[in-house]
């Protein structure tokens, strides 16, 4: 993951995925009443209106349920990545179905429609999003095709 060992990396937010970790996992919630799985963590269950949830590590692999490619720079803020129209690089976005758990919305490491297919196998990774004012590389999560 590290592109330059001298650069310190930090997560885009605490509590979204395990950090630090060589095999990152998203952190979700599981309803202690009905077992419904949610992402990110939340209190309260939209399925059974239960009020008790526990934090769990979600599966690392799943299948691509649907996808698109973000073809224009998102408005910044809120977007923290490169939104300069001259150098903006399109990025893939999709939902990955984690078996038995939930479908999570995620960036994809691939932005070429020719290389994206509904049903393909995917796994979680972390990607650099931007460099903050302290010179740290801010990392967010993405799913990558499994070859």
């Amino acid at each position, binding site marked *: 993951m590290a592109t330059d060992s001298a650069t310190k990396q930090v997560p*885009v*937010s605490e509590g*979204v995925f395990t950090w630090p970790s060589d095999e990152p996992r998203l952190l*979700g919630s599981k309803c202690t009443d009905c077992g*419904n799985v*949610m*992402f*990110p963590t939340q209190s309260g269950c*939209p*399925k059974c209106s239960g009020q008790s949830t526990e934090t769990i590590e979600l599966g690392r692999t799943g299948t691509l*349920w*649907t*996808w*698109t*490619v*973000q*073809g*224009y720079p*998102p*408005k910044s*803020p*809120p*977007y*923290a*990545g490169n939104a300069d129209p001259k150098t903006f690089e399109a*990025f893939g*976005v*999709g*939902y990955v*179905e984690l078996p*038995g*758990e*939930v*479908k*999570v*919305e*995620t*960036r994809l490491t691939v932005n070429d*429609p020719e290389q994206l297919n*509904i049903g393909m196998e995917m796994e979680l990774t972390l990607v650099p*999003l931007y460099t903050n004012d302290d010179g740290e590389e801010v990392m*967010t*999560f993405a799913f990558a095709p499994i070859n």
Partner: protein
Amino acid sequence: MTTDDVAIVGIGMHPFGRHEGVSGMDMGVAAVRSACADAGVQWEDIQFAFGGSASAGAPDTMVSKLGLTGLQFINVVNGCATGGSALFSAYNSIKSGMFDLGIAIGFDKHDRGAFRVNTKASGLSDWYGESGMALTTQFFGMKINRYMHEHGITEDSLARVSEKAFRNGSKNENAWRRRPLSMEEVKQSAMLSYPLTQYMFCSPGEGGVALILARADQAHKYTDTPVFLKAAVVRSRRFGSFEVMAPHIALEHNAGPTVDASAAAFEMAGMGPDDMDIAQLQDTESGAEIMHMAENGFCEHGEQEHMLAMGDTEITGRLPVNTDGGCLANGEPIGASGLRQVYENVLQLRGDAGERQVPNDPKTAYTHVYGAPGISGVTILAK
């Protein structure tokens, strides 16, 4: 058929589009004045108002321009169903017997380009927007991509819907985009969110609409051509549906708020999809119109490919859809958008739609809005 309770007796609109130097509020005021003139009433006759605007100010402050009459004025903000919610509230205020004459108002004025999403106000964490996922356009791309995969809808159908919208818009003097575009131009425009191109998307815009409602038994005091509101329904999402701005979706599937709102509206009106002569369906992008044809009960999933190719949803077709050019040609000022659909249906049922008039004297008409965070509003009108 149920008894008529509520009639629309006056309609007013400020043209949609971009209007430098005109505030959203002033477009609302212009729409109110033109609705009053249409109904032949004075502002002081109006007993109550529900006003909706997402980003152009608090609607109740417009009384300082319209007249300080002391009326009950309630502001409504309810995402993309803001206008529909104002109408729903006005409808029920008369239906309850509390009032005889009132108004539903919607206006807006948005910045150029895609909506800037306030993640906090939407109940989402900062990382979601920072990571580049707080974009409504992505949802529409992902929903239609999955739908095309499941139901055999092609890019041709996406382009056909846009071509129809801009052709209908060219016949609408109040529309924003009035230049017809070919299917090829639509397909070749910039790819914004695969598989959707620039001309398959509507843009945030500006405009204002006002509708005056009266007790049905008093409607003829105001107009020779009352149009009766048979149903007005708003529904939010249920567990398992796939909605805009959702960091997760459940594994189990629910059809979504449009299916629920549509079924409830047909039941309230005592009618079914086959009884509708015209439909205005939320077309945030061309794929949405296609999916909403089925979600509102007008066809089976996948049938749209053939229906569009046959011209079934053209003004001269079996079920004309988005006869005024829809959101695609009019843009989407959130507060006004749902009321624009009703305005168009009233024009059509009166026979006043000019160059884009649906032939053979239509008698019933349907509207549907959908938007964040997973909300749908439906109305059914009849004359």
